[in-house]
């Protein structure tokens, strides 16, 4: 019978007290795991170092809002850009890829954000070396009323290829659009906000009733955006306006077909943002970056648009807000460790007075002072380790249970099996803590007067 078994017996003898002590440690550790994992999730979720775009072009305003809206899709868009501006950006000689995106609506079921875009969106890597993938029998949304959905959307809503869905208009009216999109593909999981996004063909997105901007409003917006007069805008869109007038006459003469059978005129189209990738030169790897900086600087001077390197506002957010929250969480973790330690100390120390006789018996049987000291220390370590392991399991159990809820409510994509390598340091920390808090009770055992306690 070794010291470990003896310590284990002592724990079993005080099963209730030992269980409560281990439970308090377990709760502490579970909370620590949650803090560590939350920290990792936040860091990982907002880490854009490897995003496939150099710039996000959107209306002027908060850089952070633009990124949270277009990349993370967790805030609603505030303003849009005229389609004409997208055409200009696309023609810029330094820009390699310009992908329009339109946001604002969500799915009726599950409330997932709907993103109207072109199939080029899926050609750009969503992370370094990682491309979107769909099943070989699936297809990309080339047709007007076609859609592909993220892996989380498919899982949560139980949607499959061939299903149809309607979308809810963004804003306060919660109006459900009549038009239906058909799912033609399901994306493989990416671990990014794309997993919880529904992608629809941009042409179809524009064709939805109410998505086209009223003509006079669109003219006024373009005039303001480009710093032109209303007449100049009308002249630019003369063909569109002529066609719109023709359609209006046509519809009024009795052919009552839906207006969205006609392609939406450029004037009435708007995009939420444009994802931009600069042209690259293999011989000059920094060229794309300097071109991006130059383009962003130009925008700051003119128009009502801004070009944002998505990494920068997120880094600022991380450093200022998230960084501070992270520090608070880590301090909290340290306090939890100390509280757990104190609970073990109190439990073992309180048991010492009733255990002096036991210790005296062991000493009388030949145990030396170091052996009884080691038994108490081992007991403390066992309690800490059991509590620690239960806490790790409990912490991860909580994460597995909470992941879909957090994803549904905040849009943050959480891998339920996420593991923070810092967790590995918990075991030596717990052993160290156990040794520390077990030291004083161990010393009490070490100093126990055998003759006095045997006769007590």
């Amino acid at each position, binding site marked *: 019978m070794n010291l470990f078994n003896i310590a284990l017996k002592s724990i079993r003898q005080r099963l209730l007290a030992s269980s409560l002590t281990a439970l308090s440690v377990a709760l502490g550790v579970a909370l620590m795991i949650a803090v560590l994992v939350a920290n990792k999730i936040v860091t990982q979720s907002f880490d854009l170092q490897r995003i496939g775009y150099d710039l996000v072009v959107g209306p002027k305003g908060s850089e952070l809002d633009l990124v949270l809206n277009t990349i993370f899709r967790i805030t609603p868009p505030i303003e849009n850009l005229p389609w004409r501006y997208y055409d200009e950006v696309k023609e810029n000689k330094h820009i390699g890829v310009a992908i329009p995106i339109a946001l604002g609506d969500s799915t009726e079921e599950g409330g997932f954000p709907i993103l109207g875009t072109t199939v080029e969106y899926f050609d750009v890597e969503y992370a370094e070396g990682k491309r979107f993938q769909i099943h070989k029998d699936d297809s990309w949304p080339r047709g007007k009323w076609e859609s592909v959905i993220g892996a989380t959307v498919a899982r949560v809503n139980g949607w499959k290829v061939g299903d149809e869905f309607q979308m809810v208009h963004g804003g306060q009216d919660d109006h459900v659009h009549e038009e239906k999109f058909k799912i033609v593909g399901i994306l493989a999981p990416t671990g990014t906000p794309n997993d919880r996004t529904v992608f629809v063909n941009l042409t179809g997105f524009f064709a939805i009733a109410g998505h086209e901007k009223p003509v006079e409003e669109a003219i006024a917006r373009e005039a303001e955006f480009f710093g032109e007069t209303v007449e100049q805008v009308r002249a630019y869109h003369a063909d569109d306006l002529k066609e719109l007038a023709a359609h209006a006459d046509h519809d009024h003469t009795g052919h009552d077909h839906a207006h969205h059978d006609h392609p939406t005129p450029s004037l009435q189209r708007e995009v939420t943002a444009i994802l931009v990738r600069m042209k690259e030169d293999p011989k000059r790897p920094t060229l794309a970056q300097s071109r991006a900086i130059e383009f962003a600087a130009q925008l700051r001077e003119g128009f009502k648009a801004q070009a944002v390197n998505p990494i920068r506002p997120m880094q600022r957010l991380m450093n200022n807000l998230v960084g501070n929250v992270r520090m608070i969480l880590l301090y909290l973790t340290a306090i939890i460790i100390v509280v757990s330690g104190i609970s073990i100390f109190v439990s073992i120390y309180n048991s010492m007075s009733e255990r002096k006789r*036991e210790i005296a*018996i*062991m000493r009388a049987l030949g*145990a030396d002072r*170091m052996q009884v000291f080691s038994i108490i220390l081992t007991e403390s370590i066992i309690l800490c380790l059991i509590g620690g392991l239960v806490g790790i399991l409990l912490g991860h159990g909580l994460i597995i249970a909470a992941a879909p809820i957090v994803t549904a409510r905040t849009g943050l994509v959480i891998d339920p099996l996420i593991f923070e390598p810092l967790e590995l340091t918990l075991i030596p920390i717990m052993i160290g803590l156990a040794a520390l808090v077990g030291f004083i009770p161990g010393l009490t055992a070490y100093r126990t007067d055998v003759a006095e306690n*045997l006769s007590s």
Partner: protein
Amino acid sequence: MSLKLISIHKSYKEPSGENLPVLDVPEFELKTGEQAALVGSSGGGKTTLLNIISGITTPDSGQVLIDNVEITRLPEAARDRFRAERIGFVYQTFNLLPAFSAFENVLLGMSFARGRADRKHAKELLEKVGLGHRLSHRPGQLSVGEQQRVSIARALANRPSLMLADEPTASVDPANQDKILDLIQSMCREHNVSLLLVTHAPEIAQRFDRVVQLAEFNQVLQKT
């Protein structure tokens, strides 16, 4: 010779600061395999004497020799080990550990002596004291008599040369007293273990060939 005491003195400090002598034993010897009863009323220093012999308490002066080893000169850790290996102790209140089964209580003493327990020997001893069917019972699940039998098996677990018994039947009902004493004496005879049994009951002392009166043995009692 199994045990020899030479000029043992022990006193305790009183709250007033004065020394209170409790033990003064000029000389005492117990031969190998010999069985002796030390008789006297309580407060005569019997328990202090047993603690000094077993090395739990150190005397103010004098020598304790067991198997020709002067344990009073040994450092504490060596005394602890010596006690575990050479001395068996049977207490009035048994001093069994409640969390451990009868079998484990016997193994425990072995573990402290040698680092590893001889499970076969432990089982044999418990069978000899009539508890072969109670190995996995905890002290709380055993009768008082059975508990004392476990403590006898534990005292013999490390094949000691000396057994000290401190009022071993004081907590046992009269019907079981003789059985317990028979067991202690026969087991010590069988294993050639010297036995020093402390008791206040003259009828128990009658069972022994050698009876030492505490009043003659402890000079402190004569002086007072």
